[in-house]
C-alpha cells in the first residue's frame, strides 16, 4: 500500500480523499493556491504546499507544478479528485513518467472516453446501445421514410445547422412524417440558411441515470448499482439518489452489464461511471458518456452498498485486487445527496462568494456531511460554487426524503446565501416525492410550482423583522439619549439589560 499520497484538488473532494487516506493510515499532502491557504483540506492534511496564484490554470491545473511538489514531498501516488486534472490523459502519463502512481484508470481509457466520437465508437463495438440516429443528413422523402421505419416513433427531426433546442420537431407517428419533414426543412432554411435535416430517436421523459463501475488491474470488474441524477438545472446536477425510483432489479442487471461492456472497451481499471440517458416512458437506456474518475455524487452509492469507493479506488491503484465480488454487491435502503452551493436560489442562482460567519451542520442518524467549508471560511470567487454535500440515508425513499427535509431544516449557513432553501422546497414537491420527474423537471415544472408556493410563515417573518427594527430603533434612541443626558435611562430598562443574558 502507498505510504504518502498527494491530493491534486481542493474543497470537499480533497477533504474526502484526506479522510480516506487517514483511515487507511496513509500520509497526505495537500496543495493549495494563494487564496486557499485557509482551505479545510490544508488544515486536515499532514503536509501542505502552495502551488501558485488563484487562477486554476496557474495552480490546480498546472501539471508541472504538481509533479514538482509530488517529487519534493516524495509521494507514491497522486489522487486527482474530480474536475481539474482528473480526466487529463497527458497528466496521467506525466505521473507515470515520473514513477508516481496516478490514482485513476490507464491514460488510454481516459483519452478514449474523454472524446465524444471515440468513446461512442468504442462502446458501439461492444454493442452498448446508443441513441438511435443517423450520422448523415436526409437526402429526400424516400430516405426519410426508410430511416423512420428503422428508428421508430416518436422520432426527432433536427436541422443540421440548428442547436440549443432550435430547429427541432418531434414526430409522433408515420402519418405526420412527411409534413414534418417538409416543415423542418423549410424552417431550417429560413432560420439557418441551410435546409439539411437529420433524424434521431426521440427520448420521451429523459432521465439521467448512471452506473458505478469498479475495475482492478487484474481484469476483475463489477458494477455497483445506479444513481438517479435527473434533478438538474441547466444541465447541472443538483440532487442525486440511489437507487433510482424507476430502476428495478432486472433493469439494474441489464444496465450494469451494458456499463461493464463499455468499461471493458477500454480495459477500465479504477472507479468510473457510465452515464445513460433513459426514457422514463419506455425504460430504454442509451450510452451518453463515461466519466473516468470519482463522481461528485459517489457517496449515495457508498451509503446504499456499504462500499467505500474512495478507499477501493486507492487500493486498486496500489495494485490490490477488488475486495468485493459482483454477487456481494447489494443495494440496501435509499440515499439522497443535495449539492449545497454558494448560489442564491431566490435570485436566479447567482453566485454568492463571501465569508461564512455562522454554520450549523445537521446531525443525528442517517446524516453524512461532506463539506469543504467551516465557520470563518471565505468562499473564493475563483472556483466552483459547490461548498458542501448533504447526504442522507433512510430505510426507503420515503424515509430518506423525510430525513432530508429534517436535516435541511437544521442546516444554517450564515454570511452567504446557499441553495439549502431550494433543496428544502424540492423535498416538499409532490412530483419529486412520487419519483415523477425527468431532466427538464427543475427548469420547467418545479420552477413554476415553486414560484407559486404557499408561504404560511409570512406573518412570522414580518413579526421578526419588525422586532429587529424596533430593537435597532431602541438602540439608536438609547445611544442618543445617553449622549444627551449622560446615561439617565429609565431604571426598568437598565435592570432588564443587566438581568437578562447579554446575548438577548
Amino acid at each position, binding site marked *: 500500500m502507498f505510504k504518502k499520497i498527494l491530493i491534486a484538488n481542493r474543497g470537499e473532494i480533497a477533504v474526502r480523499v484526506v479522510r480516506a487516506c487517514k483511515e487507511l493510515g496513509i500520509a497526505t499532502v495537500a496543495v493549495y493556491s494563494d487564496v486557499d491557504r485557509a482551505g479545510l483540506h490544508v488544515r486536515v492534511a499532514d503536509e501542505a504546499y502552495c502551488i501558485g496564484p488563484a487562477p486554476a490554470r496557474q495552480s490546480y491545473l498546472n501539471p508541472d507544478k504538481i509533479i514538482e511538489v509530488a517529487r519534493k514531498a516524495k509521494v507514491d501516488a497522486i489522487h486527482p479528485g474530480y474536475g481539474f486534472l482528473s480526466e487529463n490523459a497527458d497528466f496521467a502519463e506525466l505521473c507515470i513518467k515520473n514513477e508516481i502512481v496516478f490514482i485513476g484508470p490507464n491514460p488510454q481509457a481516459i483519452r478514449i472516453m474523454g472524446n465524444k466520437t471515440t468513446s461512442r465508437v468504442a462502446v458501439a463495438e461492444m454493442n452498448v446501445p446508443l441513441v438511435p440516429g443517423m450520422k448523415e443528413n436526409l437526402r429526400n422523402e424516400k430516405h426519410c421514410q426508410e430511416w423512420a421505419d428503422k428508428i421508430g416513433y416518436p422520432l426527432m427531426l433536427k436541422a443540421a445547422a440548428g442547436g440549443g433546442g432550435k430547429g427541432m420537431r418531434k414526430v409522433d407517428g408515420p402519418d405526420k412524417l412527411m409534413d414534418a419533414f417538409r416543415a423542418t426543412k423549410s424552417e431550417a432554411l429560413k432560420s439557418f440558411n441551410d435546409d439539411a435535416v437529420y433524424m434521431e430517436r426521440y427520448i420521451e421523459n429523459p432521465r439521467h441515470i448512471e452506473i458505478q463501475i469498479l475495475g482492478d488491474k487484474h481484469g476483475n470488474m463489477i458494477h455497483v448499482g445506479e444513481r438517479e441524477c435527473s434533478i438538474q438545472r441547466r444541465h447541472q446536477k443538483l440532487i442525486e439518489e440511489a437507487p433510482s425510483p424507476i430502476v428495478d432489479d432486472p433493469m439494474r442487471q441489464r444496465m450494469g452489464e451494458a456499463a461493464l461492456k463499455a468499461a471493458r472497451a477500454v480495459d477500465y481499471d479504477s472507479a468510473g461511471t457510465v452515464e445513460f440517458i433513459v426514457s422514463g416512458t419506455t425504460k430504454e437506456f442509451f450510452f451518453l458518456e463515461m466519466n473516468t474518475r470519482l463522481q461528485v455524487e459517489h457517496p449515495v452509492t457508498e451509503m446504499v452498498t456499504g462500499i467505500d469507493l474512495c478507499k477501493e479506488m486507492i487500493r486498486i491503484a496500489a495494485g490490490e485486487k477488488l475486495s468485493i465480488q459482483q454477487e456481494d454487491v447489494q443495494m440496501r435502503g435509499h440515499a439522497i445527496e443535495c449539492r449545497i452551493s454558494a448560489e442564491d436560489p431566490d435570485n436566479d442562482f447567482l453566485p454568492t462568494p463571501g465569508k461564512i460567519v*455562522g454554520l450549523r451542520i445537521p446531525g443525528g442518524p442517517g446524516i453524512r456531511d461532506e463539506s469543504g467549508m467551516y465557520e470563518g471560511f471565505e468562499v473564493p470567487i475563483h*472556483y466552483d460554487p459547490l461548498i458542501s454535500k448533504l447526504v442522507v440515508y433512510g430505510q426507503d425513499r420515503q424515509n430518506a426524503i423525510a430525513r432530508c427535509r429534517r436535516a435541511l431544516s437544521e442546516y444554517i449557513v450564515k454570511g452567504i446565501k446557499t441553495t439549502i432553501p431550494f433543496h428544502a422546497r424540492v423535498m416538499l414537491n409532490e412530483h419529486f416525492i412520487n419519483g415523477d420527474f425527468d431532466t427538464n423537471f427543475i427548469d420547467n415544472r418545479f420552477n413554476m410550482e415553486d414560484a407559486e408556493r404557499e408561504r404560511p410563515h409570512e406573518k412570522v*417573518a414580518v413579526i*421578526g423583522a419588525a*422586532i429587529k427594527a*424596533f430593537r435597532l430603533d431602541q438602540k439608536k434612541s438609547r445611544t442618543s439619549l445617553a449622549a444627551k443626558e449622560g446615561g439617565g435611562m429609565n431604571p426598568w430598562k437598565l435592570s432588564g439589560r443587566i438581568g437578562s443574558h447579554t446575548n438577548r
Partner: protein
Amino acid sequence: MNYVATFKGEDVRVKVEESGPGLYRVRVDGEEFEVDFFSVQENIYSLIIDHHSYEVDIDEVGRDQYSVLLKNDHFDVKIVDEKKKKLAEKLGAGASGRQEIKSPMAGNIWKLMKNQGDSVKEGEVLLILEAMKMENEIRSPIEGVVTSMAAVEGSAVSAGALLCLLNPVEN
C-alpha cells in the same frame, strides 16, 4: 412603536411594544402576538411566538429593508416607521431618478456590453460579470441612458461596488 411592513407590495400595520427583557407584544393587522425574541448567534434569532418555536435569520440589508430566512423560505420585508412613511408620502411618491447599478457579488468584469452614452432597454444586458466559473449578466432595470460606466473590463470588483449609472428615459 408603530410601523408599516411591506411584503410583496402589500402594506400592513405593525405595532411593537416591549413587555419585558427580550419579550415583545406585537400587533399585526389587528392580531396580537406574545413574542420571546432571543439572539442565539449573530443575526439568528430563536422566536417563541405564543409557544411556537421558530429559528429566524434576519439581516438588515439596507435602509428599512430586511431579508428574512425562515423554514427555508426567503422573505424580503420592508419595515418603516409609520410617521416617517406619512412624511415621505406627503413629500411625493419617490421620484424615480438616477439609477445606480451595483455589483451583486464579488467577481471579475468579463465584458462590457454597453458604454457611456448608450441607450438601454429594460432588461437589456449592461455587462457580464464572471465569478465562480460562471458568467452572470447584469441587466438594466429601466429604460434609459448609460450616463457613466465605472466598470472596466478585466478588473475585479467587490460585492456592492458601483458598476454604472443610468438616467431614465423621460416619459
